[in-house]
């Protein structure tokens, strides 16, 4: 069962680059690409549509 979904940002460009899924009672994680043909990406969109909240902590912009 999904525990959390977090947006991941590229450390060089600061661009949103993937989702990170953690699961309840599991040490396994899944990193999901931004690709509409990926089944995990599709599942995340359904999860969001069903009311799930994605954790989003974007890096601070450098002035």
């Amino acid at each position: 069962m999904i525990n959390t979904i977090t947006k991941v940002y590229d450390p060089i460009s600061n661009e949103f680059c993937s989702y990170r899924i953690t699961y309840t009672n599991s040490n396994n994680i899944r990193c999901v690409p931004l690709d509409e043909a990926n089944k995990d990406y599709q599942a995340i969109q359904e999860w969001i549509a069903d009311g799930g909240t994605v954790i989003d902590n974007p890096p601070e912009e450098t002035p």
Partner: protein
Amino acid sequence: MAISKIPSAGFQDNVKFRNIIINGDMSIAQRGTSEASVGNSFTYFTVDRFKLGGSGSSGARFTMSQDTDVPTGQGFAKSLKMDCTTADGSLGASDSIQIVQRIEGQNLQYLKKGTSNAESLTLSFWVKSNKTGTYIAELRDTDNNRTISKAYTIDSASTWEKKTLTFEGDTTGAFDNDNNASLRLIHWLYAGTDYTSGTLQTSWGTLTATDRAVGQVNLADSTDNDWYITGVQLEAGTTASDFEFLPYDVNLRRCYRYYWGWWDKADAASNGAIGGMAVNYSSSIVYISGHFPVEMRTTPSLDQGSGTAFYRFLRASATDFLDDFELSTNNGRTNERGYELFNNSDISGTAGHGGWIRCNNASAFVNFDAEL
């Protein structure tokens, strides 16, 4: 050489890759060979390309495994086994499980579905169960929400039997010509009344849930029950040809398109399997990149074990310990052909240092998943 010198066998089964099903001999199992307590979920557990499907809330559980029990003298070495470990003799209406293979639409265009020349399909497979009776095999066109089901009977308990079912061509609804799932081959193992209370739909038509699995026995009604299958072949036409055996490496590479076990747990157990070359982009960021052995179906997910010091980065006579990796996919940095991973949370190194990554824990694994 005169044509008369070519043995007649040279002309038999001369349509290569005629089997639409991948890994029908159950020989590849990258994720592992056994998974206990599986139930009504949509997950790949053991044998490549064969997914457990299900619905409802039944407490029935199975051990799903790759097994060596096979029909004698047929050339098979492996089968897929479902062994009931927790029974449910009174299924709820919505309860079901199935063994499913999903097939890309671009691999099905030659079937000419949705035209007056639509090809029939013939399904053949070997099956064995102590639970005799009626079982259902279904083809489901997910592009057009159409389906067709056929019943087969396991006649003799605990005896391998070959079954052949022919499905007529469907003149309605073309398959999409893309890399998404268009067709599902579904073997039902139990089904509640939501799937059994109608009349079995033995001709192509719009999906009606209650007509999908009429007559299906309940494989979950006793922990004595098990079910084996191998030699699954789906091919154009109205007759079943001999199973198309492929070389192991060919079969494995076909599976890699959907799932690539880069480091599995057996590799990790050796505590030293190399994962790839890596470089310190800066003191706190390490990047790892490489190519997949075959082009994957789509940009894959990164599936991995995560924990304190599960991996290590060896560089310039020093070692950094990493918990896991992130996947960089913006701007195509990871795509169907290759990957770019990074870690920016566990590194304290020197910019420009090169090195390599190894597993460092028996529970570590790193796999790429582009399944349907």
